C-alpha cells in the first residue's frame, strides 16, 4: 500500500529493549542525553500525538547510526530523529536555531562549497584554516570549534567522462561508476585517484561524472531541501548507467550509506535500483574475488596495522569487506580495534558545543590506538572514512590512511 509511512510503521516494532541506548556512543558519555530509544521511537509517539517536538535533545544525536545497526527490531531510529529535525526546521512558530547556528549548518553541511573554495586556492585555504586567528574567528562567528581537526584541502579529483562512443554496446564493457564524495574530492583526491587505479587494475573502466555532495552532511545539519535537490541531481547522472546494471562504487562510508539507504526514498527514476547497485569499494572487490575475478598476484607486505570500523560502514550491514580483502595479501597483519565510534561523526565534532563530547566519545578509540602503538602491535592505522581518519590523527596522533593504499602497495601500484 503506497501511502503507508514506513517510518511510522517501524515505530510499532520497537519492544523497548533499550539495546540501542546501551550502544549509543553519545549516551555513553552524556548522561543528559535521553538516547536513541527515547529520542526515536518513544518521542515519536509523542510527536504523533501533539506535533510538539522535544527540541533541544535532537541536536545531541551525532547521526552515527550505531543505534540502527544495533536494534534487533529494525526500528528506523535515525529516520525518526532526522524527520523530527526536518519538521523543526519547517516549523515557523518555534524559535529554531539562532542565526549563527543556521549559518554553521550551512557551512558544515556544504562540505562541497567549502571544498570548492578550498581547491581553488588549496594552499591558501589550508594556511587560512591553519591560522589560529582564523580558527578563533570560525569559533566565535560560526560556532565551529577552534580545536576540532578541520581537514586540509588539495587539488580536486575532477571528473572523468565516459569514453564510450555512441552506438557502442555499454553492456559489454566492464564499467563502473565511481562516487568519490566531497571528502575524497576535495580533501584527499589522491586516495580517489588510487581507487580509480585499482578499479582499472582489476579490469574496469571508471566513470566519474560531475556529482554533487551526496546530501548526508546537509541532512545532518538540517538543510533538508538542499539534500533532496542534490540526490535528484546525482540520480539523474546515474540513471542511464543504473538501467544497464553498471555498479556504483563508493569509497566514503557515509556516501555509501546515503546512496544505499536514502536515495531509494527519492521519487525519481533510478531510485528503485540504486540501493542494490551501490557497493563499497572493498565489498565490490570481494564480490569479484568470490567469482574468482580478483587478481591475486600480491607482493608480500611485512606490515602490521590497526583498523577502525567507521559507524557508517557498520550501518551498511556488510561486515568488514576491507579486512577480508586485505587478508588475501600475504604477510599482512591487521588488528581490528573494535572500540566503537570515533566521535567526530561527519560534522558533529566540528561544532563548538559538541567538541568536548566528541572527544569523550572517541576516547576509547584514542586509548586503544595509543596502546597498540606503545605495545608495538602497529605503527599505523587504517580506516575507510575520511573524517574518522582526521579524528584519529587528531586524538591519538597516529598516522592513518584509507585501506586502499595498502592494497595499492600490494599490487605494486603505489
Amino acid at each position: 500500500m503506497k501511502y503507508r509511512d514506513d517510518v511510522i510503521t517501524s515505530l510499532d516494532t520497537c519492544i523497548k529493549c533499550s539495546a540501542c541506548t546501551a550502544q549509543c556512543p553519545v549516551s555513553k558519555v552524556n548522561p543528559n542525553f535521553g538516547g536513541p530509544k527515547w529520542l526515536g521511537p518513544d518521542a515519536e509517539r509523542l510527536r504523533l500525538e501533539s506535533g510538539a517536538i522535544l527540541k533541544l535533545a535532537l541536536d545531541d544525536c551525532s547521526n552515527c547510526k550505531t543505534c540502527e545497526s544495533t536494534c534487533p527490531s529494525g526500528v528506523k531510529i535515525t529516520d525518526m530523529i532526522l524527520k523530527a529535525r526536518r519538521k523543526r526546521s519547517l516549523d515557523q512558530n518555534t524559535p529554531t536555531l539562532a542565526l549563527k547556528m543556521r549559518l554553521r549548518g550551512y557551512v558544515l553541511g556544504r562540505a562541497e562549497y567549502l571544498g570548492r573554495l578550498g581547491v581553488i586556492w588549496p594552499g591558501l585555504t589550508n594556511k587560512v584554516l591553519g591560522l589560529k586567528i582564523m580558527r578563533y574567528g570560525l569559533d566565535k562567528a560560526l560556532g565551529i570549534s577552534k580545536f576540532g581537526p578541520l581537514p586540509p584541502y588539495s587539488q580536486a579529483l575532477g571528473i572523468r567522462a565516459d569514453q564510450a562512443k555512441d552506438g557502442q554496446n555499454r553492456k559489454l564493457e566492464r564499467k563502473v561508476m565511481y562516487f568519490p564524495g566531497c571528502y575524497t574530492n576535495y580533501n584527499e583526491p589522491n586516495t580517489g585517484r588510487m581507487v580509480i587505479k585499482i578499479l582499472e587494475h582489476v579490469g574496469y573502466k571508471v566513470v566519474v561524472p560531475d556529482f554533487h555532495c551526496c546530501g548526508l552532511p546537509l541532512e545532518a545539519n538540517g538543510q533538508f531541501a538542499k539534500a533532496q535537490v542534490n540526490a535528484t541531481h546525482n540520480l539523474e547522472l546515474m540513471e542511464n548507467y543504473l538501467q544497464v546494471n553498471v555498479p556504483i562504487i563508493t569509497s566514503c562510508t557515509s556516501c555509501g550509506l546515503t546512496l544505499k539507504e536514502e536515495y531509494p526514498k527519492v521519487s525519481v527514476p533510478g531510485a528503485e535500483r540504486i540501493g542494490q547497485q551501490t557497493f563499497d569499494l572493498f565489498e565490490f572487490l570481494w564480490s569479484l574475488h568470490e567469482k574468482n575475478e580478483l587478481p591475486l598476484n600480491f607482493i608480500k607486505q611485512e606490515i602490521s596495522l590497526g583498523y577502525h570500523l567507521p559507524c557508517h560502514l557498520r550501518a551498511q550491514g556488510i561486515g568488514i569487506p576491507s579486512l577480508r580483502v586485505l587478508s588475501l595479501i600475504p604477510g599482512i597483519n591487521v588488528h581490528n580495534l573494535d572500540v566503537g565510534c570515533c566521535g567526530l561523526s561527519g560534522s558533529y565534532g566540528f561544532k563548538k558545543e559538541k567538541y568536548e563530547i566528541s572527544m569523550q566519545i572517541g576516547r576509547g578509540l584514542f586509548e586503544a590506538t595509543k596502546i597498540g602503538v606503545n605495545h608495538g602491535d602497529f605503527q599505523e592505522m587504517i580506516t575507510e572514512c575520511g573524517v574518522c581518519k582526521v579524528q584519529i590523527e587528531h586524538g591519538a596522533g597516529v598516522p592513518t590512511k584509507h585501506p586502499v593504499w595498502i592494497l595499492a602497495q600490494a599490487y605494486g601500484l603505489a
Partner: protein
Amino acid sequence: MREFDTRVVIIGGGATGVGILRDLSMRGISAILLEQSELGHGTSSRFHGLLHSGGRYVVKDEDAARECIDENEILKRIAPTCIEGTSGWFVHLQDDNPDYMKAWLTGCSRVKIPVKEIDVAEALRLEPMLSRHVEKVYEVPDASIDGFKLLWANIRSAERYNGKFMTYCNVSSVRVENGCVKGVYAENVRTGEKILIHSEIVINAAGPWAGMVAASAGAQVSIIKNKGVLLVFNKRLFQRVINRLRAPRDGDIFVPHETITILGTTSYTVGSPDDNWIMPEEVSYLMNMGKELLDDIEHQRVIRAFAGIRPLYEEASTVVGEGREISRDFALVDHEKLDGITGFISIVGGKLTTYRLMAEKVTDWVCNKLGLEVVCRTAEESLIPPVEEKLKDKARTMFGVAMADKMMERLNDRLGEVVKQVSQDPAQGQLICECEMITKAEIKHVVHEFNTTSLNDVRRQTRLGMGTCQGAFCTYRAIPLLADLLEEPGKLREEITDFLDERWRGVVPILWGEQLRESELTRAIFNTTLGVGQREQGR
C-alpha cells in the same frame, strides 16, 4: 462497628457518582461517596473515551443528541484539561446508505450540531490512514475525554466544598426502616472494618451493579448488562475521532487518546457486571470491522484489549434483541413511587458525556426532597483551578513542551510541587516510564497523595505502564518508590505480580506480532531474571 452521620450517601465512584458528590457539595449538602474498589473501577474507566457531539444519536434519538451537544460544550468549558478538542469526522464510505447520510444531515441541523464538510482529498491528506473508499467527510465537535482525570477533577472540586469519599468501601446493604431509608451498611474491603452510615437519603449510582444495590434495599431496578470490547493501538492512527456515517454498529469508531488510539466497540449482553473477559473471536471481529475504515489495520500494533459493561436501563421488562436497540438515555428511579421506599433513588443508564446533567437532575431531586432551594452551578464553575502561566513556562523549559503539557494535564494545580522537586534535585526528573514520559518526581508525588495504595493506583493517576511496553520496564523501576507504602519486602513482590497480572490480562487477548515479542521480553525480565511470576501466565 464504626458509625457516622451525613445527609446523603452516594453509592458508586463512577462518573455519575462523583458528579453527584460535586453538585451536592457545591449546593452545601453534606454527602459521602462510597466506592467498593478504586475510583473508576466500573464503566467510567472501561469506556471509549468519546465526548459525544451527539452525531451518533441524531438519527435515532434526537433528545439524547441534544443532551450530548449541550453537555459537550459545557464540559469543554469547565474541564479543558480532561478533554482533547480533537474534533470528529463522520465518514461515508462507498457502499454506505446515502439515505442515512441525508437523515443524519437533517438531524444535525435540527439539533444544531455544527457540521462542516471536508473535501475528500484534503481529508486524506490530514488523515493519511483513512480508507481510500471514503466518499464524504463531515466534521463535528466530537472530542476525546479522559475518564480518570475527569473523576479526580470532580473529586477534588467536591473536596473544596467539603465533599467526602471513601474508596475500597463496599456497601453491603441499604438500611430501610418502616419504608424509610436510614443509611447504609458498608465494609472496608482492605481491613474488614464494618461501617454504618446514617443518612436521610441514599443514591444508588452503582452503574452495572445498580440492580444488586437496589435489591439489598428490597427494591428493584432492571439493568441490562451490555459488554463492549475495545482495542488499544500503540500510537495515534488518526488525529481526530473517526466515526462511520451509518446506523450505529460495531467497531465503527476510532478515538485518539494521548499517545494511543482506541477502536470500538461491540455490544453483547452478559449476566454479571464483572463479566468483562474478552474472547479471541471478539478481537478478530473488531479488527475486521475496523478494517473498513483503516485498510492497513493489520500492520498497526495493538497493545491491549479491554471491555466495559454498559448499564442500560430496561424500562418495561421487555428485552428486545441486543443492547443497542434500547435507549441509552438515563432514568431516575424514585423507589418511593416504585417500591414504597422513601429517600432512596437509583440513577441508571446514560453516557459519560451526560454525567453532569444526570448529577444535576439527581441533586435537584435531593433538594426537592430536603425542601431546599439552591440552584445548580456545576455548569458554570470550572472543575480545575487554572495553572499559573509562569509555572507553566518553567515546566516547559525544564521538561520540553510536549512532556510538560502532558504533566500539567495530569497534575494541574499540583504541578508546582513536582517542578520544585526537580529544580532542587535534577535527578528527580529521571524518566521512570519512558513510553508515557513520567518522571520519578511525579510518581513520588502521587505515591504520597491521592489515597495511593498500589502501583495500579499510580497507573490510574499517571498512565504508568499504559504505553507500548505494558509495564515491562517501568514496573521494576517504579516499585522501589512504593517502599514507604509497602513496608514488608514480601509485599513488594506481591505488588509486582499484581501489577503485571493486571497488564497481562489486557494483553492475553491480543497476543500476536509485536506485542507477543514484547510479552516474551517481559517474561524474560520478570520470570527469569528477577524471579517474580505472573500468576495468570497459564491462561
